[in-house]
């Protein structure tokens, strides 16, 4: 910034746009860079995940649900099952998991001190690995 003209350009670039043609230093700093640019063909760009995502196709959704519900009703009718029995059967895996956890805890209480220490060591190691994995940022959009 050598001259008053340069300062006036800095204060108001639009009013003193002609200054760039005169001053080589200012042109180098603030002039057009004239980088080579390519025209973008928008339809050729990859489809973003959010494009069309908000569309709600209710006929497809309702058809899928009705088909599944009708199939379930027919099968329940054939098998002679009541809805309550279906609910009970679906909770069977939860009950077996609960039984496994309580049995394991009882076995752990009855186990030797060494076995208990080994178990708690494994518990800490697994949770440390989980902690380490959770620290990684999700890739998702950037992938």
């Amino acid at each position, binding site marked *: 910034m050598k001259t008053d003209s340069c300062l006036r350009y800095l204060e108001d670039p639009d009013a003193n746009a002609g200054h760039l043609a005169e001053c080589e230093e200012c042109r180098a700093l603030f002039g057009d860079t004239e980088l080579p640019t390519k025209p973008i063909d928008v*339809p050729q760009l990859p*489809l973003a*995940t*959010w*494009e*069309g*995502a*908000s*569309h*709600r*196709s*209710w*006929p*497809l*959704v309702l058809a*899928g*649900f009705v*088909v*599944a*519900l009708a*199939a*379930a009703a027919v*099968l*329940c009718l*054939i*098998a002679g*099952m009541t*809805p309550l029995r*279906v609910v009970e*059967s*679906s909770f069977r895996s939860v009950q077996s998991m609960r039984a496994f*956890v*309580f049995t*394991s*805890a009882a076995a*752990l*209480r009855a186990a030797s001190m060494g076995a208990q220490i080994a*178990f*708690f060591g*494994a*518990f800490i190691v*697994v*949770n440390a*690995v*989980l*902690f380490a*994995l*959770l*620290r*990684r*940022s*999700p*890739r*998702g*959009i950037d*992938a």
Partner: protein
Amino acid sequence: MRRMLRLFVPLTIVGATLVTGMIAAPSEPFSGTMEIRSITLQQAASMVQQTAVVVSLIAVWILAAIALTLMSGREVRASSTEVRASALHCFTLGLVAVTSFVLTAIVFSYLVPFLIGIPLLFALAVFAVITKIYGMIAVFHAVGTLVAGARTRNQLDSRKWLRGDLAMSVLGVLILGALRLIPVAGPIVWGLASVFGIGSALATKFGRREPWFLRVAQAF
């Protein structure tokens, strides 16, 4: 790869139907008298009951998918993208998380006599169930998008029904539900989907894409 997958899934469904038919069919051709040697009537009834339970659960999953996708479609989409973008990480995280849930549940059960274990166990169960449900719905969305998602804008514009998060989620439930009906492979596929789902739910913090833990430098 995607084209192969699009072919693979319908072929798997057809194969599964054939395998189911072969298992359910009598070992000898029908010759006037009803003689079933390989399968008893009780086993057949049990098989129908199991199928009824599975199909009923699929209907419930569709309802859950509709509700969650309507409530937080963006989050489900983010987790679904994560499953597709870094599947191995999601799978590893899911496996470690499931192991951690089980070990933590045993430790909390160990603490039940000291009373503190009961609320901790309850909180863990609630968290695990929420993670599983959310993760499964993210996997449904990912499967639906992989199989039937639009690849180009022209394809997207030309579609009337097969577009949007809701359709992809429901389609995913139907595809995975059909696979779930395969006698031996179905539960394995469903279990793997659960692991992927739990992993993606935790990797994206339920689609919010925020870090779970603040770094020490950020905290102060």
